[in-house]
């Protein structure tokens, strides 16, 4: 087969694949578009259902009526400014809390798991197997299942209604330990030997390795940030005062029917809740994927 023929076939395949992907992309993106256009809608517009049936594919009026229900009648910033001005929830404070908790938790989790992973990957010591199994068991027992005893324990530690009480319980993660054990196993032995020959102490050896594995550190930090950003149950139990709330709690409050928050404001808050994780992922995407590719197959 000639080079050109091969190319042509692969263009055809590319287009076909894209077409097959189309419906899935629509199913994923449609609700998000609806959410973003929802910011500018009045409650009345918002609850207007799209009427697809009976379908009149060649009727311009049919399409324009669908478009007019899907798109808002006018674009005004009122809902966004109401949200940001804190008319419904102290939005900036809540956003800041979420950011602080998630960043802190991600940083703590990366630090602890990387150290533990290094110890598991690079040393033999008694009790190693047992401890490693314990770390695996961590994955299997989600904190959510033991929320009540965790909550009462956090209270006893004097961390109730503090951001630390939400941040700290999340820093132990089985997934992270296993991930970093795998990462440090793949660091060639020569690097370690070189560092040790230079007379570096074990802790220094660990620190000199960090720049080498930074894509892995970044990747895990990102995953953990996303998980922390989504956490709902633990903050719900620990945080009581309004000024200390995190984003999922504020969202739940906005969604609550009895609050009568305009739908547009709800959608604005939802959109803002997605933006940080989406941006973070978009930025780290490439590093994350290549570090996964290196690891998953081995």
């Amino acid at each position, binding site marked *: 087969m000639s080079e050109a023929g091969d190319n042509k076939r692969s263009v055809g395949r590319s287009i076909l694949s894209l077409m097959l992907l189309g419906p899935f992309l629509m199913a994923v993106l449609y609700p998000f578009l609806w959410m973003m256009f929802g910011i500018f809608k009045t409650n009345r517009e918002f609850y207007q259902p799209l009427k697809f049936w009976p379908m009149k594919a060649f009727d311009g009026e049919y399409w324009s009526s669908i478009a007019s229900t899907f798109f808002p009648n006018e674009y005004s910033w009122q809902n966004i400014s109401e949200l940001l001005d804190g008319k419904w929830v102290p939005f900036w404070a809540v956003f800041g809390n979420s950011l602080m908790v998630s960043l802190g938790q991600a940083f703590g989790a990366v630090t602890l798991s990387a150290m533990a992973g290094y110890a598991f990957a690079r040393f033999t010591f008694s009790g190693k197997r047992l401890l490693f199994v314990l770390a695996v068991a961590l994955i299997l027992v989600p904190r959510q299942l033991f929320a009540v005893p965790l909550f009462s324990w956090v209270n006893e530690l004097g961390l109730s209604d503090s951001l630390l009480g939400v941040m700290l319980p999340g820093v132990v993660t089985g997934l992270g330990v296993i991930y970093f054990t795998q990462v440090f196993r793949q660091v060639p032995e020569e690097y370690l030997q070189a560092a040790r020959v230079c007379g570096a102490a074990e802790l220094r050896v660990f620190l000199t390795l960090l720049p080498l594995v930074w894509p892995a550190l970044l990747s895990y930090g990102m995953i953990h940030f996303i998980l922390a950003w989504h956490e709902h149950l633990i903050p719900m139990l620990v945080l009581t005062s309004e000024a200390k709330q995190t984003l999922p709690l504020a969202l739940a409050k906005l969604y609550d029917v009895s609050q009568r928050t305009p739908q547009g404001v709800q959608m604005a808050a939802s959109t803002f809740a997605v933006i940080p994780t989406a941006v973070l992922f978009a930025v780290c995407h490439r590093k994350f994927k290549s570090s996964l590719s290196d690891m998953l*197959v081995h």
Partner: protein
Amino acid sequence: MAAANQRTPGARWMPFLILLPFLFFLLLFWVIPLVGGVKMSLQANGLGQAEYVGFAHYKALANDERYATALRNSFVYTLASIVVIVPLALWLAHLLRATFRRLRPLLTFALLLPALTPPSVLAVLFLMVFHGKNGLLNQLFVMPLGIFSEQALGHGLGPVSWLKDPDFILSGLVLQTVWRWTGFMTFFILAGMEGIPRVYYEAARLATGSRWQHFWHVTLPQLRPVLLFVAVYLVVDGFSLFSGAFVLLGGSGGTADAGLLTVTYVFQKMRFFEYGTASAISVSLLPLMTLALWVALFLRRRTA
């Protein structure tokens, strides 16, 4: 590795020193609450009750029909989500690899969007998809099917009330999970596929065989670790995640408990301060989770 231990006499406790911060937090925020949970499951219900009742809560669970329903539903829900998500994600990853290279990051990102969205937002977006007669699911899938069956078979299908009809509640919940996680798993599988050394395919091409055979004999075995990870993740998530079912069904089990999942049941017990029972349910899930992991590890070892 062994060299590190022999280097200096003090190096014996070095690994423990490095592990110390992790172990400290493990004890503080995992072991202690876990033990607290087990203890709570042996105590009488109610706040601040310290009276031990032995295994009474567990015995009560053994005869509790709702507990059996919740377990069965969670099991079906988890299994169904794995059965749908894994092949779908494999296919999507394949399509992403086959399509234009330039578009790949953008398309992957779009598919991943639901996994980046907080579960409460997802549930609200999903409510719209399900909501009653005018929901998107009915408009785009059920209604065309209905029109088709009316013309072909002579009797139509009404719109499905996804969140009220006991026959469909569980499928609705599964659909939500599929919508949420498929893109994420596609991403993992894609990363796994890109890590497979090209040489394997070149060797396979020499041995001829169809694309399908390449997939079956090269891609799939190589992806085993990834697929195991995906399955374990979905099992844990299926048995523990509560936001989705909670927002969609308002914390109830839905009509005739058709959508009652274990975590929802735990939450219901907690709401009435039956902490003993709630903890007993949580503890009773541990052997199940362990079994799931054991199966996964066993499969992994066998393939290695």
